């Protein structure tokens, strides 16, 4: 029976994360710290959520943690959160203490140009033509690359020593992409909330600017974009989780006799992942445009906390494949005849 919404448990997890981030990742922390709230999240077991029980994790699905990931976007949380909490469990699940948050991971997978937050990483997973390599902090040479987002620095990566990893990168890459889309939804929601608050408070021509129809309609358009991007992200998480389930079923020679009905073949999962990333990126970029227009010149300054969210909207919309790249994948898949809907 379809039940397209989050469970109380999933929402409770998100609420817990939100409370922690409100307290330990306020805007002031974004100016002062490279990795605020990290230890607190670790204390909650955040970095073990997707790890299997044998790696001290909770074995949750991406869907289970999606609302919590959205909260990390809403708070503009810095640090390699997606890489450590979402990608690493599918690349290096056996790493000791990964679940505890004591090990930070950055990744440089196909479609990424640079490794985000690699300055904080104890381990790097770098995809090479002959397969993924695991690189330890002491073997790596990082070259910082300029970017829009001061809280998500990018690095070119070079190294001599590394270990081969016997793992497919696609499961990690898909999840990191969908997790990033969830963060983008969170960023967009926060930008919208900030726009609304400012439009209520700021007066010009004797009225709150939020009473002018031009402002109302711009913000209504942002609300609509976010409202209809979010379900695509949820759907992509289900698809990714489902394809894992389907693989697991296949692996057991489909003993149960019933194919997973949610996850489709890989091409459909990729399609759904790209739909999520493109829509979430566009919603966040639209929200960034609107928040600047509503704020006027003041939005254009470093003094406002706003700039962190703006930068995050732009940096995440380019992360794990730009919107253009995902749109290209979508049209290839869809014009290739993949019009299947699930269920």
């Amino acid at each position, binding site marked *: *029976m*379809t*039940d*397209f*919404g*989050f*469970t109380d448990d*999933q929402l409770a997890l998100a609420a817990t994360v939100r409370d922690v981030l409100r307290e330990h990742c306020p805007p002031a922390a974004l100016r002062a710290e490279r990795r605020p709230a990290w230890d607190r999240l670790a204390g909650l077991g955040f970095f073990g959520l997707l790890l299997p029980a044998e790696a001290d994790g909770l074995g949750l699905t991406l*869907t289970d943690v999606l609302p919590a990931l959205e909260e990390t976007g809403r708070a503009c949380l810095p640090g390699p959160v997606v890489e450590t909490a979402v990608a690493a469990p599918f690349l290096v699940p056996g790493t000791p203490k990964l679940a505890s948050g004591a090990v930070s991971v950055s990744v440089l997978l196909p479609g990424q140009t640079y490794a985000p937050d690699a300055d904080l990483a104890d381990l790097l997973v770098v995809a090479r033509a002959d397969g993924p390599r695991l690189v330890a902090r002491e073997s790596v040479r990082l070259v910082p690359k300029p970017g829009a987002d001061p809280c998500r620095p990018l690095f070119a990566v070079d190294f001599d020593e590394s270990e081969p990893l016997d793992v497919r990168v696609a499961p990690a890459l898909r999840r990191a992409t969908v997790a990033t889309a969830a963060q983008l939804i969170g960023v967009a929601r926060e930008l*919208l909330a900030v726009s*609304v608050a400012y*439009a*209520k408070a700021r007066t010009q021509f004797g*009225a*709150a600017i*939020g*009473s002018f*129809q031009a*402002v*109302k*309609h711009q*913000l*209504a*358009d942002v*609300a*609509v974009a976010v*409202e*209809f*991007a979010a*379900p*695509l992200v*949820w*759907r992509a998480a*289900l698809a990714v989780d489902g394809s894992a389930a389907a693989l697991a079923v296949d692996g057991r020679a489909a003993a149960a006799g019933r194919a997973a*009905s*949610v996850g489709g073949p890989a091409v459909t999962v990729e399609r759904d992942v790209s*739909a999520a990333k*493109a*829509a979430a990126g566009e919603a966040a970029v639209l929200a960034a445009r609107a928040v600047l227009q509503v704020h006027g010149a003041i939005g254009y300054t470093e003094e406002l906390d706003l700039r962190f969210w703006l930068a995050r909207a732009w940096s995440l919309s380019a992360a794990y494949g730009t919107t253009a790249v995902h*749109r290209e994948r*979508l*049209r290839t*898949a*869809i*014009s290739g*005849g993949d*019009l299947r*809907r*699930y*269920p």
Partner: protein
Amino acid sequence: MDLDFSPAERDFRAEVRDWLSTHVPRSLPSMDTFEGFAAHREWEALLASERLSVVSWPVEYGGRSASLVEWLIFEEEYWAAGAPARVTQNGIFLLAPSLMRFGTPEQCERWLPRMARGDDVWAQAWSEPEAGSDLAALTSRAEPAPGGWRLYGHKTWSSRATHATHGFGLFRTSGARHKGLTYLMFPMDDVAVRPIAQLDGLPGFAELHFDGVFADQSMVLGEIGDGWRIAMATTSSERGLTLRSPGRFLATADRLVALARSSGDPVLIDRAARCWVEAEAYRLHTFATARRITAGAEIGAAASMSKVFWSELDLRMHALAMELLGERAGETPWLDGFLFSLAGPIYAGTNEIQRNIIAERVLGLPR
């Protein structure tokens, strides 16, 4: 979270698909012609004979007491099968929800089964020449008469009214603006109907002139003077989930992708693919809304987000088809579809009004 269907839901889908595959007529004349209207009523009666005309209604009124999700499944199959537009739409989607919520059991028993079978076809009578977006400015009135009310005034933009048997709308019984409006049903027999030809040349709309049309006491829905509240509940349903199920847009998007693919133009294919994904987003969003409604939530002003999204998506899809087809558009159903889609951002509350509602009632911006 889960997007699996239950075995019962899958069985229902299979039954509907199977039945439609053997019963959907190849194509009917436009419902705005006399013979088309009759053919569409026949089709409604056939649907009703399978209890498929109003699947979500209680069994006693002709439905199957289907869940919201089952109704969405029905709609997906209905439009994917290329089945005809619903001539009973105004009654089923606008009047019936108000009847079920505000009507007496007698009113429901009297009118709903007939509506389900297409025995009665209902026209809405909301707008007046000077009251389009500004519905509270209505001036048509109902005056007390022995045993009921006599209606006076002038309504317009009444869809399907040229051939309809009954109508419903708001009439002023006292007061000004939102106050003193009463929700009344009436037979069309004594209403002077002037058809209004649309861009496609057919009378999809009509003007209604009332000069003492009689509606007996049983035709009042709810309390005297409570019409505004009842109508708002109805128009919210018009704007929201019930009028615009995703099925029609999904079918349009599938056909659009096929059309774009044959052009070989990557820019047009990209636009089609984008529409396809947006139709899918609308579908998923609707599943989420259905879940909330099933759990007892009121959708309220959020329905305006759906109205803006589906109406502009529908227009975008048809405008793209126009570009793809060029001078061949008139040889396909896409041209009529395009003309129809142009009305989407206008009716059931213009999208300007909808964006005001989103800004004021969803986001909380000042009026």
